[in-house]
């Protein structure tokens, strides 16, 4: 392991996040076991007060987690000079088998803790805290994810071996190579484009429907289309979107767009995608809670607002990814 400032920062950071989530989960277990909203006992009162602690613990953990996703990618990018064969973050992440799983775990942690905060927000709107059981079960579910994330990250940093030549984006996302990256890179462009834009349209139509009247089945459809759109978007970034940014018909790397050479365009691109998708998916996720009468009004309003966020996110993402195709002279036709 290198004593690299970024690695130290990430290790400390993930230790802190783990500590926060663990203590939140321990409190959560106590609350789950003893919770009785009807009781006036002092114990119940102290549990109620602990719910505040749990929610700030998770909120802080999430904000650290967001910082850590970016820091992780950036660190991977920075240490590529230490590794033979690495030319960008892809190469560093490829340095051992823990790199990419760590990144995925970070993204999952981000989504799960964000949805916890969303549910917590709703729960705090109703006088009898109707979602408390679901909420704390979910919280306990977060623990293994965060644990896995920290373990993977630690393993990743411990096992980086500069002597092992890693393959970088050039090979990993090459059209000739083997593996997922390569098979994504070699997808035919036109059908992918068509899928991408038709899913975008479905998502937007559903989003508009929900923002008008947040009812079934549109809410569920919005969730499903958001999820599908997320998957297709990531595939599309590798297959064709990134090519337009690089102006190269063979460069498929999803990380290079985060670099200075491409004016950091990757950051707004990924941020709009992630936030848009998150809100879109949450709309359907909270649909079942409408059964709770105290929450019905709040949920209707929330769904209306979140569907707007989903639309905004998706539109910004689509605009950024479409812009170079329209504005720059480079074309993929003929490749």
């Amino acid at each position, binding site marked *: 392991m*290198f004593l690299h400032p970024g690695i130290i920062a990430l290790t400390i950071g993930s230790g802190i996040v783990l500590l926060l989530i663990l203590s939140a989960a321990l409190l959560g277990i106590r609350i789950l076991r003893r919770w009785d909203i009807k009781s006036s006992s002092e114990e119940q009162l102290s549990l109620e007060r602990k719910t505040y602690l749990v929610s700030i613990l998770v909120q802080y953990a999430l904000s650290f987690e967001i910082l850590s996703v970016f820091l992780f990618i950036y660190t991977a990018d920075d240490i590529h000079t*230490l590794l*033979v064969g690495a030319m960008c973050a892809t190469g560093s992440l490829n340095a051992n088998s823990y790199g990419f799983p760590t990144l995925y775990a970070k993204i999952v942690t981000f989504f799960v803790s964000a949805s916890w905060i969303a549910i917590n927000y709703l729960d705090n709107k109703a006088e009898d805290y109707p979602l408390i059981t679901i909420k704390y079960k979910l919280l306990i579910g977060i623990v293994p994810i965060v644990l896995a994330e920290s373990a993977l990250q630690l393993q990743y940093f411990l096992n980086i071996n*500069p*002597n092992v030549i890693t393959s970088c984006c050039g090979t990993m996302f090459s059209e000739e190579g083997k593996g997922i990256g390569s098979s994504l890179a070699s997808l035919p462009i036109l059908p992918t484009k068509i899928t991408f834009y038709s899913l975008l349209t479905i998502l937007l139509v559903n989003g508009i429907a929900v923002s008008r009247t947040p009812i079934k089945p549109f809410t569920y459809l919005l969730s499903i289309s958001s999820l599908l759109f997320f998957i297709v978007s990531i595939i599309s970034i590798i297959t064709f979107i990134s090519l337009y940014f690089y102006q190269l018909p063979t460069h498929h790397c999803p990380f290079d767009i985060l670099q200075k050479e491409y004016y950091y365009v990757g950051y707004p691109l990924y941020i709009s995608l992630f936030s848009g998708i998150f809100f879109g998916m949450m709309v359907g996720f909270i649909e079942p809670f409408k059964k709770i009468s105290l929450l019905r009004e709040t949920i209707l309003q929330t769904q209306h607002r979140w569907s707007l966020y989903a639309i905004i996110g998706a539109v910004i993402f689509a605009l950024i990814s479409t812009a170079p195709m329209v504005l720059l002279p480079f074309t993929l036709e003929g490749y």
Partner: protein
Amino acid sequence: MRRSSIFFLLTALKILIIIALFVHSRIELSNRMTLWKDLEGIVSTLKLTDMALFTDARYARHPTQADLFSAFQDYPGSIEHFPTGTIVPPPEFDSVETVIKIK
């Protein structure tokens, strides 16, 4: 004026200073481009491999050329090179050296 506005203003001011420093750094760096080119020229003519930052010990003066086997070359018992020794360890060859395998 509200206290929060004053706080925001002060924070914005500090961020502006940081941005100014950032601009300063970019200007300075672009001014240095020719210097680096010239230095690179000197390095390639004289075939240098190291910086003249630490001249008190052999491994500190030429960390990249230090040999692999004398593990204790001036280290770790070499108190005479103490300050540099804490800053420049003998290179960690297991993390920087490329393994060259002979078939």
